[in-house]
């Protein structure tokens, strides 16, 4: 071409067979617009189709550019088809075939060459292939101008959506949009599912906590019920036991009032002694009740307690009858514990052993055994022993076995022992067969 009047009328990419369809459609439209008759339009479109298909089939992709050019005073409609392939290897052989069959390879090039007025083909292994197909525009062609060419371009742009290819492309775009929306929706759903799972986990945890709280509440209720029962029993026995010395005091006071003269001093003195005895008894009872109420519940500071020393102190504080021997076993430990509780425990157990002994002479032995996690203390006597059916009952409040020996008893000693050991996580019990009884309790190490 000497020069191009309109070098870039339409440019298309050739990437698939549908692009080839679009290319030959454009070729037909442009040849019609430039005034060619129907056979020429068909020839040009066919030539474009042949070369375009070669590009898609052998290279994969390329471009086609339509232009209007001038050579030796004549106007031509030109299609330049380029690709970046490796060239056509046996081009000379292909071009020299005189009568190509449609089954022959490369017949498209020969066909294309036959259909156009100017045919130029450059093929190079590095630069790819460039085919230039030009068909003469009739002498009596419509007027061409920049505006006219622009109006064609506008027409192509408007019409682009009615071509099947563009339609399919558009539908593909729509489908891709829908897929993208679905993908986003799916992500959102996943997110919501995660949230639901998290909420479920939270809920499960809350449920667990509530169940635990309910269990704790039910335990607390049970404990409360037990304590209420104990309290009821306690109130009953306390009122009953406190009444007894009061009745006695009332009786003695009435007797004192009836004494006519002061001369009967001896009798008055006797009544006063008895009154004092009853008052002491009440005092002891009240002290016992207070000890029981406080036992194991008070926040007492722990100190280092040498058990042997503590036991000697307890023994010194008790009035031991002359015939009673108290033996301390070896290996008594040093504890870090609430000293007052240990004093209460041993005080009660040793005084019980003395109090309920049925002979003037006897032996009491205190021992300790170190076990895994706890110490086991024992206070053994050689007294009358305790029948098996009372082994549990004696630990109840106000339960005393021997009426005569119990004259000085509050019936609270063993209840206190049991309560303190229970509060410390241990237990207290008695073992006795025949003569002698051994009281045990455990204490945490």
């Amino acid at each position, binding site marked *: 071409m000497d020069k191009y009047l309109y070098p870039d009328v339409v440019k298309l990419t050739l990437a698939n*067979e*549908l692009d*080839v*369809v679009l290319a*030959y*459609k454009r070729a*037909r439209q442009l040849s019609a617009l430039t005034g060619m008759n*129907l*056979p020429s*339009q*068909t*020839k040009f*479109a*066919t030539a474009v*189709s*042949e070369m375009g*298909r070669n590009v898609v089939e052998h290279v994969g992709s390329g471009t086609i550019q339509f232009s209007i050019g001038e050579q030796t005073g004549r106007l031509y409609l030109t299609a330049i088809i380029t690709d970046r392939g490796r060239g056509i290897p046996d081009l000379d052989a292909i071009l020299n075939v005189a*009568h190509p069959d*449609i*089954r022959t390879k490369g*017949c*498209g090039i020969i*066909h294309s060459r*036959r*259909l156009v007025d100017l045919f130029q083909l450059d093929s190079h292994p590095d630069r790819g292939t460039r085919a230039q197909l030009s068909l003469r525009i009739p002498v009596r062609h419509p007027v061409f101008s920049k505006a006219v060419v622009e109006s064609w371009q506008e027409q192509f742009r408007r019409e682009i959506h009615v071509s*099947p*290819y563009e339609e399919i492309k558009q539908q593909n775009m729509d489908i891709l949009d829908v897929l993208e929306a679905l993908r986003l929706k799916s992500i959102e759903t996943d997110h919501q599912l995660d949230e639901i799972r998290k909420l479920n986990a939270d809920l499960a945890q809350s449920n667990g906590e509530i169940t635990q709280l309910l269990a704790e509440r039910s335990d607390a209720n049970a404990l409360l019920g037990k304590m209420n029962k104990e309290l009821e029993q306690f109130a009953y026995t306390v009122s009953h036991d406190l009444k007894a010395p009061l009745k006695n005091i009332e009786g003695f006071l009435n007797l004192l009032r009836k004494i006519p003269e002061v001369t009967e001093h001896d009798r008055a003195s006797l009544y006063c002694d008895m009154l004092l005895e009853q008052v002491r008894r009440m005092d002891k009872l009240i002290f016992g009740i207070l000890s029981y109420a406080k036992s194991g519940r008070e926040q007492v500071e722990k100190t280092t307690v040498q058990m042997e020393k503590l036991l000697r102190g307890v023994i010194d504080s008790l009035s031991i009858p002359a015939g009673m021997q108290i033996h301390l076993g070896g290996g008594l430990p040093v504890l870090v514990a609430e000293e007052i509780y240990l004093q209460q425990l041993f005080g009660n157990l040793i005084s019980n052993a003395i109090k309920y002994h049925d002979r003037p002479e006897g032996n009491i032995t205190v021992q300790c055994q170190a076990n895994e996690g706890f110490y086991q203390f024992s206070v053994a006597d050689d007294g009358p022993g305790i029948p098996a059916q009372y082994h549990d009952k004696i630990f109840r409040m106000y339960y005393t076995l021997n009426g005569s020996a119990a004259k000085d008893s509050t019936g609270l000693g063993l209840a206190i022992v049991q309560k303190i050991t229970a509060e410390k996580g241990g237990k207290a019990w008695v073992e006795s067969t025949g003569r002698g009884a051994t009281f045990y309790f455990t204490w945490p190490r």
Partner: protein
Amino acid sequence: MGSFLLVTIQVDLYDRLALNLETDLIRMVSETDARGVLIDISAVGLVDSFMGRILNNIATMSRIMDAETVVVGMQPAVAITLVELGLTLAGVHTALNVERGMELLHKRLGSDVREGGRFYGNSE
């Protein structure tokens, strides 16, 4: 006796569609026991070597399956192009329109054949 298959091509045939036409048609010939295939290309504005090859293939395969192929309704411009190319559609009979094509088939096969039809492509 078998029937005729009438195929009307009403869209631009791109390669895959053309190859589908080829296989569909051969399958239909087999299924319907057709003795004749009429391919109406009156809406086709272009027959290049690829399209020519497709028509040729259809005719060759039909003949193997004992059916005749007639291409009808070729536009004059298409015919001119084919002439300029020197393309002969070997083994493919041609007729001006469907009626003439039917006549041709009847003449070649005798008159006792049923007629059936099948359209290819959309109805635009």
